[in-house]
């Protein structure tokens, strides 16, 4: 039977992984999501509470997928507190996705927080295509580091490096993810840099990659309502993150005057992005 991806599908939470004290991964069975491309997202319905756009996380279980959520606001906390056996609704997957260049040899993945989710799905693709990858993960401190083991596992068939950085130096390299990028990109040649995380981090990644003439793809986040390209809430200039994104390449990013600068709130008012030190 043909499934309309815009219609909410009710799924059961089969398993929950505690990644950090404030981040959990919820695993559910859904064929469409299990086949999602890296960078695509789901609109996740927490019945009678909220609906949130969330990047599709990978699950080891066949026909399963996952979402990784940081508790924070009203909706994300309600989702974080869901128990095994409870239900949520999903629609999608929506949006475009990270792309792999033909004959690609080396990739660099860099992200932080729940921005690591689409990069994890991308890591499995790198493994599948035999592309050597360096994966830089930024966190504030040791307690907030997650996905390190999984990233090594997802990349196991390729020559790979997973580098963790913490702002306070309590684990891995001390400093930001982009500090590490600044060092690596000088020494090694990459075919493409993929990034997802705090927007000011991505802006630095874009600036560094541009300096060294390396192609970039960044997965952006904006406040969303419909997820299907009609309401306009998620616009960055003339582009819609839900439809033309979430992934934009260096050509798009160069033309986006709002990238790394302007974010629209629920009312549509513009405010300045201040998410990264």
């Amino acid at each position, binding site marked *: 039977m043909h499934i309309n991806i815009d219609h909410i599908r009710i799924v059961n939470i089969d398993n929950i992984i505690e990644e950090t004290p404030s981040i959990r991964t919820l695993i559910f069975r859904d064929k469409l999501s299990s086949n999602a491309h890296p960078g695509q997202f789901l609109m996740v319905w927490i019945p009678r509470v909220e609906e949130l756009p969330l990047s599709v996380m990978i699950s080891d279980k066949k026909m399963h997928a996952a979402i990784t959520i940081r508790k924070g606001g009203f909706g994300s906390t309600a989702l974080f507190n869901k128990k095994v056996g409870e239900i949520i609704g999903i629609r999608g997957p929506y949006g475009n996705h990270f792309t792999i260049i033909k004959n690609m040899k080396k990739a660099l993945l860099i992200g932080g927080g729940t921005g690591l989710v689409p990069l994890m799905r991308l890591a499995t693709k790198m493994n599948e295509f035999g592309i050597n990858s360096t994966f830089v993960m930024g966190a504030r401190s040791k307690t907030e580091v997650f996905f390190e083991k999984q990233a090594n596992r997802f990349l196991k068939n390729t020559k790979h490096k997973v580098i963790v950085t913490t702002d306070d130096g309590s684990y891995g390299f001390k400093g930001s993810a982009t500090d590490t990028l600044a060092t690596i990109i000088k020494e090694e040649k990459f075919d493409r840099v993929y990034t997802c995380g705090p927007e000011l981090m991505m802006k630095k990644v874009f600036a560094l990659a541009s300096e060294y003439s390396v192609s970039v793809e960044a997965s952006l986040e904006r406040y969303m309502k419909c997820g299907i390209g009609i*309401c306009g809430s998620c616009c960055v200039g*003339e582009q819609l993150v839900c439809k033309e994104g979430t992934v934009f390449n260096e050509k798009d990013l160069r033309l986006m005057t709002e990238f790394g600068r302007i974010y629209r709130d629920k009312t549509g008012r*513009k405010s300045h992005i201040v998410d990264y030190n």
Partner: protein
Amino acid sequence: MKQNSKYNNDILRVNISSLSLRNPTILASGFLGISQELFNKLYRYGVGAVVSKSISTQPMEGYKNPTVVSLGNGSYLNAVGLSNPGAESFSKEVISNKQVPLIISLVGSTDSDFLPMVKKFDHLNICGYEINLSCPHVTQMGMEVGDDPEMVNRIIKTVKSYSRKPLFVKVGVGNSDIIAVAQIAKDAGADGITAINTIRAMTIDIETSMPILSNRIGGLSGKPIKSIGIRCVYEISKKLKIPVIGCGGVFTWEDAVEFMLAGASAIQLGSVIGYEGIIAFSRITSGIKKYLERKGLKNAMELIGLAHKY
């Protein structure tokens, strides 16, 4: 601009009150309507005019998600809750507007809400107003105001007393007779009527027994309401002899032509964007053009109200 020349075509040009549009396709209020850069893009893609999201005196967050539900078969249910950046912020957004024929949709509870808003927009490069008297899912705004004849009269008189720009009133199918509301609007000095808005509707998820929209009840748009829209446009334009902009489930050039034959001077597009994006404007426009040529008509305005004589 060379890119625009294919949309500047006299056969498609329509006049509605004092407005002259290069073609009869207009972006309906509520869709894609908060970014000047998006308006510019829509104009590049061939839109005849753009109606903004409904703007209120103060910023509004709207309802929590889910606010939009796709029902399939070309229809949506929405209760966005009139989220908008407010008049002050939005007037700054559109201050740079140069070439887009931009109609500002305004919403408010009383006549006193409207004058300060009109004062913020009237000196900008905008081509008119559309007063939203028909949003079916926010209390004391939209339709609830439209159901109060005296308030409708006062709002329109207030806006017209200050502005010389054309004023359209968007009406819907609700408690009050749509023709009666349109009549009041006309008598108060409105230059045209936009018909129709979404129609109060609901959807329930059968696995959880829960209404999906956070507001439970919302407005139905898209293909299922087209024939209701045709009927309203036909009756309003025939009885009231006032310019009407048709809205409701236009997906194809055939739908657009049908609205014009019913009496619409132009048509608004919304739900179709969810299916094919903003390319819909040029596709529908070129369909209308071919139809006009096949029928041997010199201008799209010759279609307006042709069905009235039968």
